[in-house]
């Protein structure tokens, strides 16, 4: 590759995106990635071969036996999902990385730089989908169903279109609002889209009747040319060529016009937020100082909030199943809600504890303060558990009139669960920056698993206690053993 050339620049972007995983060392960075790629590749090829050679050719690939309307819905769903990752990718690549000034100062055409960045985002958006889909689809194509190539091509088309739209949209928001508010808008938007798509996939569990109606509506044939994405996905040549043409045109236009918004905004990572006039009253007290500081820092970090919110969104289907199961069993939903709230509170407290303890921005400042380590740790524990405890209290109040036992179980077990989860993180969380929140489970696999078992054990305790079952002692004992084991391990380590 020629240094400064288009391919070289694209490779540079992809390399930076890969290194964004934050792991050090080639092996530590590459091994999990290879594993993540190897599983779907081997699985996809194996499944493709296992289905055997089609008897009658089946040239329509994915179209064999699946209504075109549903395929179209899948293509649109994929596009929407990719939009959320593309928007974040665009923000990171064009703004956060802060290398636009460096690249544009180099003696290479600006258009080439912007195009390479756009292609880099599109490639990183397409990669996870391609890894999952391509091995199976290409195997089926080789086995006699060439139409499956259309699916692989449409992954690229979806990614390119999503990136093009994201470049224009995010660029527009940056110009209109400035870089920092744009970041908030993009992150919240991406989180809402990601959460909505996840909930949509879980619709059959959460709202079966609504899901059935939506499925029937999507399965109906779509009018031409709206059905072209579906026809392209099943390998019809003309629609496929048209879709590829549209993707190439959109990407080119976005790189030439949309990406320039980032240059025109004059910002390559040095945002200037407008200051709002606020009143700061000085107060006394260590606990108050630390709690207020931690809550302020969390409230001002939209990326962190969205990541925490997404973790909780993933619990909604399980909670919905629990509640529905109780309703269908003609029992009260109280115990199920108690379990769900307890699990919520446990994971929320653990997340906050990691943020306020492990991700402390200025540990030396606290260490230099004339306070004991224990006093600061106590204040941080209060900060980490304050929001989960409010959540637990609100849920208990809401449950009280209809299910007093569930309310009591939620309040008691939920509070203990939040505190123990926070303790676990406070004891073992390794110092890291807030941006490493998503990867914190990788930093300590044992804590990650321990946190999940703890959440499950306390949730089961709350559920059984709310039902008045003596078996509540069993999961409570398990949770207590985890905490006691962690305390002992901490003493030994000290």
């Amino acid at each position, binding site marked *: 590759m020629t240094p400064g050339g288009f391919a070289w620049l694209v490779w540079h972007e992809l390399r930076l995106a890969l290194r964004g995983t934050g792991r050090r060392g080639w092996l530590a960075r590459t091994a999990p990635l290879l594993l993540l790629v190897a599983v779907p590749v081997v699985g996809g090829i194996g499944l493709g071969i296992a289905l055997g050679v089609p008897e009658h050719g089946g040239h329509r690939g994915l179209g064999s036996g699946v209504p075109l309307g549903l395929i179209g819905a899948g293509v649109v769903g994929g596009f929407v999902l990719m939009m959320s990752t593309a928007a974040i990718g665009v923000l990171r690549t064009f703004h956060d990385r802060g290398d636009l000034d460096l690249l544009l100062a180099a003696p290479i055409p600006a258009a080439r730089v912007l195009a390479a960045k756009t292609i880099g985002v599109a490639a990183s958006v397409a990669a996870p989908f391609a890894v999952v889909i391509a091995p199976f689809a290409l195997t089926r194509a080789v086995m006699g169903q060439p139409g499956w190539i259309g699916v692989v091509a449409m992954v690229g088309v979806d990614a390119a279109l999503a990136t093009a739209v994201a470049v224009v949209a995010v660029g527009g928001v940056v110009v209109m609002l400035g870089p920092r508010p744009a970041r908030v808008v993009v992150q919240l938007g991406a989180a809402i889209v990601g959460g909505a798509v996840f909930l949509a996939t879980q619709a059959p569990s959460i709202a079966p009747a609504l899901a059935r109606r939506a499925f029937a509506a999507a399965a109906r044939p779509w009018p031409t040319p709206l059905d072209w994405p579906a026809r392209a996905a099943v390998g019809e040549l003309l629609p496929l060529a048209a879709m590829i043409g549209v993707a190439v045109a959109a990407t080119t236009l976005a790189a030439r016009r949309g990406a320039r918004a980032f240059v025109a905004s004059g910002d390559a990572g040095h945002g200037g937020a407008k200051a709002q*006039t*606020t009143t700061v009253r*000085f107060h006394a007290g260590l606990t108050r100082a*630390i709690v207020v500081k931690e809550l302020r820092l969390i409230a001002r970090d939209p990326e962190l909030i969205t990541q925490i919110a997404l973790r909780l969104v993933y619990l909604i289907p399980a909670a919905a199943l629990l509640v529905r199961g109780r309703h269908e069993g003609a029992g009260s939903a109280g115990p199920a809600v108690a379990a769900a709230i307890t699990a919520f509170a446990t994971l929320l407290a653990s997340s906050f504890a990691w943020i306020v303890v492990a991700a402390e921005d200025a540990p*030396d*400042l606290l260490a230099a*303060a004339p306070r004991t380590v224990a006093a600061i740790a106590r204040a941080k524990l209060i900060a980490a558990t304050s929001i989960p405890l409010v959540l637990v209290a609100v849920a208990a109040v809401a449950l009280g009139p209809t299910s007093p036992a569930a309310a009591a179980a939620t309040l008691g077990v939920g509070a203990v669960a939040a505190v123990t989860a926070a303790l676990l993180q406070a004891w073992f969380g390794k110092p890291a920056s807030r941006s490493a929140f998503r990867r914190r489970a990788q930093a300590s696999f044992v804590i990650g698993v321990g946190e999940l078992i703890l959440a499950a054990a306390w949730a089961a305790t709350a559920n059984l206690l709310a039902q008045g079952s003596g078996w509540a002692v069993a999961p409570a004992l398990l949770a207590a053993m985890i905490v006691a084991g962690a305390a002992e391990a901490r003493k030994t380590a000290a």
Partner: protein
Amino acid sequence: MADALTITGLRKAFAAVAVDDLNLTVRRGELYALLGPNGAGKTTTLRMVAGLLPPDAGAIDILGVDARADSIAAKRRVAYLPDEPLLYDKLTPLEYLDFIAGLWGIDPATAAVTAESLLRTLDLWNQRDARCETFSRGMKQKAALAGALVHDPALLILDEPLTGLDAGAARTVKDLLVARVAAGGTVILTTHILEVAERLADRIGIIRAGRLVAAGTLAELRAAQGAAGASLEDMFIALAGSRDSAQPAA
């Protein structure tokens, strides 16, 4: 009356020995410049004095308080400002000072008045409601300095306080340090800008490989070296090592 800082037989080793049997005294009401080449042990020494690093051996006495026996009482009298400002990007300067006041247990009314005065002196009052993440390096350094001063420490320890400051800001900081000393406070600073030490410091200590190799006023250093009229730079190179080690840190 006890000295501001008395270090006796201080030792700290990591993979190699960083501070080796260091003895040092800083008197009350003086501005003391601790100089040394990169890796000489200056920052390690200051971090031990600030209570951020436990010494392997030796004693640290801060204004009559044994810092190893009663670290909380010692910390109450000290402020430490490292070269990388201890700031929270998402807090405003006022919120940051409110937090520091809470940590040090300062009376809120007093802290509010001091905070306003400091921010005005450091030309940050107009930015009091802007988050620190929007600040330049120099503004962050000034906000961190305000944090170090808001609890009115008797002993102020500054590690490379002028790094990243423009000429105007550097002048403001220097004036502020001189004013504190004039008001009876004690300041210890490290710097690679020898002219600053030469012009501001009452006494200078030169540390090399974790040991104090010279200490005194400029005149005393010259006399000890037998080099009347020599510049601090000449003496530093002679005492601390090669010409390379006298270069400012990057």
